[in-house]
């Protein structure tokens, strides 16, 4: 009965690993079943009429111009049906996307799209970001290919901020809040399994959040046309258990510490940073 899968749209979704993903998929299912119902209703009527009223030389059509009560019925019923779908959807939309409803972050990460890669900035050992293009708009002037987040090397809070490219790791069962932007053109941060999609726009920061209940290894994609490498803008991410995540971030922190001892912040260009000092 494998071919029946063709008619079961819901079977084609990639596995959901996000806490709100189940709700989105369920809403999809509701609309899907309503649509299938309407489909069979209208196509049933259509097919029945086409067969029953097919041309017969001895018959005539029926001169009838319509009826306002009937018109009103099929105006009001769809209004109620679709209105209900709209209002119910809005409830979920508010919970997943409204800026005020973004949960308190357990881990905060900055994500930056560039042609054609994703970059992720972690706050490091102190759990605090230094001055960068996200928390200070004027730091946008520091953005360069070597320093995509516009990190100010003079801010000590930023000394332990580290970034990774085309991959990130997050702990399971934790609220991950990302602030996303881009250094050049539009990209769209797409985590298919996490049911997350958000365009990132240069010059603006977007809230992206999720909470995953299932550890594993998954893929990142770009969903907004961004140039000739758009299709290849693939990354990967891991959802790790709490202890594994801590182990990974500790090792990253140690790496940063080791790198700092000879020269401060290799990730920022000191010459450019100095020129903007007030």
């Amino acid at each position, binding site marked *: 009965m494998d071919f029946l899968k063709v008619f079961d749209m819901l079977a084609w979704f990639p596995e959901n690993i996000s806490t709100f993903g189940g709700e989105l998929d369920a809403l999809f299912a509701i609309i899907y079943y309503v649509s299938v119902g309407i489909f069979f209703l209208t196509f049933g009527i259509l097919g029945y009429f086409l067969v029953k009223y097919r041309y017969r030389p001895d018959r005539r059509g029926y001169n009838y111009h*319509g009826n306002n009560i009937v018109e009103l019925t099929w*105006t009001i019923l769809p209004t109620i049906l679709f209105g209900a779908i709209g209002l119910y959807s809005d409830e979920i939309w508010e919970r997943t996307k409204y800026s005020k409803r973004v949960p308190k972050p357990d881990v905060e990460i900055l994500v930056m799209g560039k042609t054609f890669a994703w970059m992720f900035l972690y706050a490091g050992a102190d759990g605090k970001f230094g001055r960068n293009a996200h928390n200070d708009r004027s730091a946008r002037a520091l*953005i360069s290919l070597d320093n995509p987040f516009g990190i100010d090397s003079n801010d000590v809070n930023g000394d332990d901020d580290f970034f990774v490219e085309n991959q990130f790791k997050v702990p399971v069962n934790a609220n991950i809040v990302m602030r996303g932007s881009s250094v050049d053109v539009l990209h769209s941060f797409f985590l298919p399994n996490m049911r997350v999609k958000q365009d990132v726009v*240069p010059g603006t920061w977007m809230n992206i959040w999720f909470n995953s209940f299932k550890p594993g290894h*998954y*893929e990142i994609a770009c969903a907004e046309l961004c*140039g000739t490498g758009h299709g290849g803008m693939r990354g990967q991410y891991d959802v790790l258990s709490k202890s594994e995540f801590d182990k990974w971030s500790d090792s990253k922190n140690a790496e940063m510490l080791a790198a700092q001892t000879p020269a401060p912040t290799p990730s920022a260009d000191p010459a450019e940073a100095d020129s903007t000092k007030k």
Partner: protein
Amino acid sequence: MSTAVTHSSEAEHAEHAHDHGHDHAHHDLPWYRKYVFSTDHKVIAKQFMLASMLFLFVGGAFALFLRWQLAYPGQPVPVIGTLLPSQWVDNTGAIAQDFYYQLVTMHGSIMIFLVIIPLAVGMFGNFCIPLMLGTDDMALPRLNMWSFWLVPPAGVIIMSAFYVDGGYAAAGWTSYPPLSGVINNPTFTVSGQTLWLIAVFLIGFSSIMGAVNYVTTVLNKRAKGMKLFDMPLTIWGLFITAIIITLGTPVLAAAVAMLFMDNFFHTSFFLPDNLIAHTRHGIEAGAGQPVLWQHLFWFYSHPAVYIMILPLMGIVSDVMATFSRKPVYGYKAMVFALAGIAFLGFIVWGHHMFQSGMNPLLGTTFMLSTIVIAVPSSIKVFNWLGTLWRGNIKFTSAMLNALAFVSMFIIGGLSGVFMASAPVDIYIHDTYFIVAHIHYVLFGGSLFGIFAGIYYWYPKMYGKMLNESLGRKHFYWSFAAFNATFFPMHIIGLGGHMRRIHDPSIYEFLKPIEGWNKFVTIAAIILGFSQLFLVINILWSMKYGRKAPRNPWRANTLEWAAPPHPGHGNFDRDIVVYRGPYEFSVEGRELDYWPQWEPGPSISVHHHTVVVETVQESNPFGTH
């Protein structure tokens, strides 16, 4: 009014055909005024048809190239791979990666700006409006001529990017900046994108000129006795579309002009400061907002979706009434639904932008307004079903295509509800689900509607009947291949397949749908080649087709009062309108149709039209 001649027999009509047509023809015009720079609305309609059909095949060929790459990434294009220009393919004959993104862009742009809009609005608007209003020509014939003659230059300009460094535009048909700003180019560089902007500006200009003309003609040049609610739904569709165009297209023109300046002079309407590019902007003046372009673009382009479908909704209503021998069910409800869709079309543009970074609060607004559009759409669908009810349905090629329009519009409309629901859109936005949706509405809807219109009016256009058996073959092959091509795209989209990627095989999560991509590509190739039936039919019938009678479908609307192949000036008699356009199967009449131009008293009793001897002032039901 009393002097109007009443003809009731077909034969009599046909006799008059040729002599009268020639009376009006202007023999003194030189050939280039007759066939090239003609002000005759019918010639202009044919010009729109031929030019757009040409582009239909260019756009279709581009679609097949990109389908090939998606199903068989990196494999040489079969048969013609090595013959293609070196900018398009690598040396093995496989599609070059940068050309793939040009294909995506040009397929969309050509199909929307140079095929569907010119066919739906340019061709049918020009052909139907004066004829169905019973008048000799448009109100402003010379403006009409110019509205066509801006399209070929636009087509040449957009295609001439072949000779430009970097090739065709590659930022998608939506041309979102900063990508469409082509920020890596120095200022004053003409890129494919620059040419795209110029071409779209010209096409917009052509649309506006056409639309102003349509509104003027409908309001001023209706035949004597024709009230607005005596107009066929085709005219209502085109009239409302023309209003949308006059309100929406100037916004697109303004946005395109601004993007052109960003692209060519590197201003910053849409480009934020401190972008990383190989060359810095010429002017680092301000902090532009890329999302602003999306607002302006969709403020036009969402109504443009209705520009592309409202005329066809009208045409399909007319075709369905004629071939079911029944009045359109709920004529006024149909008009109000058209107007409702047009109005709502202007307040829903944000549903293209749920994930764009627009304030999610606006998502709520746009989601609710978008979902309301389902209401007038379902009114239309139910009224079409009501039109079939107790009819006497004849399955001609035109009718088959009209039925395809209705059924595919139902599917396209339902898949629209998924995207209208913003939380569901989070996942399916920018996936193949939306590609499936747009093709169900624009191909399954608009293009099948256009086919229906071509099959329906071809006899009046060329004075020859189209070949029915070729027409049916064209329909059955197209319909089957269409569904095989686009229905699986819903599944591909749910698998997560992003739009506009050149190689799905590199993603693990897209492995389960690989087979579907191949299936779709094979179906698309069949779909493309089944259009040859239409082309052969059109060209063959032009010369060898059976001669068309004056009113081959026994329809009611005024264009069938004109000679089979009307000359300049259209009509060979005075036209006076006595009734609405859909008086089929009236009780008490021998014929099952009652043309608008034939006099005769009737009354309306409980939504039925009844023939009477004389209409009395005191009739309790009033005159029709």
